[in-house]
């Protein structure tokens, strides 16, 4: 047939030459294979290889069982593992070590150390000697009095010497701005609040979780008041929807009252949900 156009020539399927095996003089053999790659181009692959017979001894029974035909749900499946039932998992490590228990402890310690290093970046200042370590770990802990106390005492001693208590710091800070809580006058006003804030942390605080989203702060107060005077009840609400986020914190004045509340309210059914009440521990 005469080819009329070059385009026809391209469409003509290319014949793939047969696989060729040539035995070489040195015992190896050369295998020449042709195949079409993804672009439809013919690829020639020449490999030289040597056959090596490896004898392996297998239990006769095991070998015969390798030829078992599949049955049951697997009847008719091709040989080899099926993807539907058999997959290869992620690598897991079994590190056998005599000191596995000790190692675990070491790991924990390392994690703790990492934590302290992180804290170090946030700058630690000892209250006693002004070095960068925790006050509790200060080497002069037992021998020295905290610096603040000394300076505080000095300040108190110096105050009567000045005309009045407010004049001295005001004179010092004449040129620069002093935030209100540092001002002598402001200190008095904010100190009561500060004290309250400190005290608030000391008060017994409980956490109520698994609240329904329609809970109101008043509900929480009503729920807790029977157990004793409530200092503060805080209900976490969504900023936009104003719905309850499911938990609340209640601070009592009395430790016993809080304990009673936990005992009574934990597992109490409220608004179709069962409440979970516990001590509000420090944040993890």
């Amino acid at each position, binding site marked *: 047939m005469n080819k009329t156009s070059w385009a026809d020539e391209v469409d003509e399927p290319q014949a793939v030459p047969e696989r060729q095996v040539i035995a070489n003089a040195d015992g190896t053999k050369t295998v020449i294979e042709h195949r079409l790659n993804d672009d439809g181009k013919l690829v020639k692959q020449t490999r030289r290889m040597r056959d090596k017979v490896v004898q392996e001894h297998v239990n006769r029974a095991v070998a015969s069982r390798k030829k078992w035909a599949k*049955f049951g*749900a697997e009847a008719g499946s091709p*040989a080899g*593992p099926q993807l539907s039932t*058999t997959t290869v*998992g992620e690598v897991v490590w079994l590190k056998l070590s*005599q000191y596995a228990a000790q190692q675990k402890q070491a790991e924990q310690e390392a994690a703790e150390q990492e934590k302290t290093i992180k804290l170090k970046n946030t700058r630690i200042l000892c209250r006693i000697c002004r070095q960068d370590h925790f006050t509790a770990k200060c080497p002069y802990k037992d021998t020295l009095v905290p610096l603040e106390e000394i300076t505080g005492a000095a300040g108190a001693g110096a105050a009567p010497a000045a005309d009045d208590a407010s004049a001295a710091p005001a004179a010092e800070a004449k040129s620069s701005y002093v935030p209100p809580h540092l001002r002598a006058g402001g200190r008095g006003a904010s100190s009561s609040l500060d004290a309250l804030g400190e005290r608030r942390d000391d008060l017994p605080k409980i956490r109520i979780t698994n609240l329904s989203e329609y809970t109101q702060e008043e509900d929480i107060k009503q729920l807790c008041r029977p157990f004793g005077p409530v200092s503060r009840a805080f209900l976490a609400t969504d900023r936009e929807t104003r719905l309850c986020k499911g938990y609340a914190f209640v601070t009592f004045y009395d430790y016993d009252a809080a304990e009673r509340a936990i005992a009574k309210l934990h597992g109490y059914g409220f608004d179709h949900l069962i409440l979970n009440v516990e001590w509000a521990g420090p944040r993890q």
Partner: protein
Amino acid sequence: MRPILLQGHDRALTQVRYNTDGDLLMTVGKDKVANLWYAHNGERIGTYEGHLGAVWTIDCNKPTTLVVTGSADNTARLWHAETGRQLHMWEFPTAVKRVEFSRDDRHVLMVTEERMGHKSGIYVFAIDSSSPVQSSEPVAVIRPSPSKATVAAWSYLDKYIVAGHEDGSLALYDWKYEELVQRADAHERPVTDLQMWKDGSYFITSSRDKTARLFETSTLNPLKMYKADTELNSAAMTPTQDLVVLGGGQAASEVTTTSTRQGRFESRFYHKIFEDEVGRVKGHFGPINTLAVQPDGKGYASGGEDGYVRVHHFDPDYFKFKYDY
């Protein structure tokens, strides 16, 4: 090592067991099927289908020609291993919790559950591997008391049957005379697994009291104790290294309340003699219900409440491990 994950069960695994040559792995679960796999590559050969309830236990004879399964449908069934054909069915008043072929393959023991007024029992049936017909009449029936038996195994030379009970005790029965030889308090809570050393001279038990213990068969003397931090469902011994593998985790009913990290779903390796923990293998995201070590010691398989069987082949490092003392 890279474990092979076998997904042949829709529900929790109840037992995994290797055959004597270690080339096949049998698994049963609560989803009514028993699966047979090649241990080296995890290829499923077939399924034994016919049970109407959860299958609790499986075993095969030494040449792997017969497979026996025990199920919650109150039957135990005998299967032709190669074709999956059912050969025989034994019926019981209650579920069958544990089956095991004797060392000479001529008998099979079956432990039945205590339920609805029926006492728990250890039945022994004769197996004639040359004939297609099996006897439905038990050769011996042992009635454990006061507590029901949960697990049982054949001792050396098939002389005794060792049973673990729900009250944590162990008992040695002379099965031919159906009588109790010895009883010993072993655990504080139910015995969950009992696996014999290959010669039957000692065995390991696991229990919900968070310990696994090693006992001498002839006297039931306690030899070793391995303390874990969680309830144990299974314990196995490795033949080439002096190690034991323990598996467990929080009880299935409480699992949803904790994350996998807290659940302690790892298999733990302890030194058999020094009782120290030497390593752990993670992987399951439910408690491990059953463990089996390949008879040649080159790997082990674990079956979990999560429905997965994980087949592990040990790395070369494992065989180099030596305990310094």
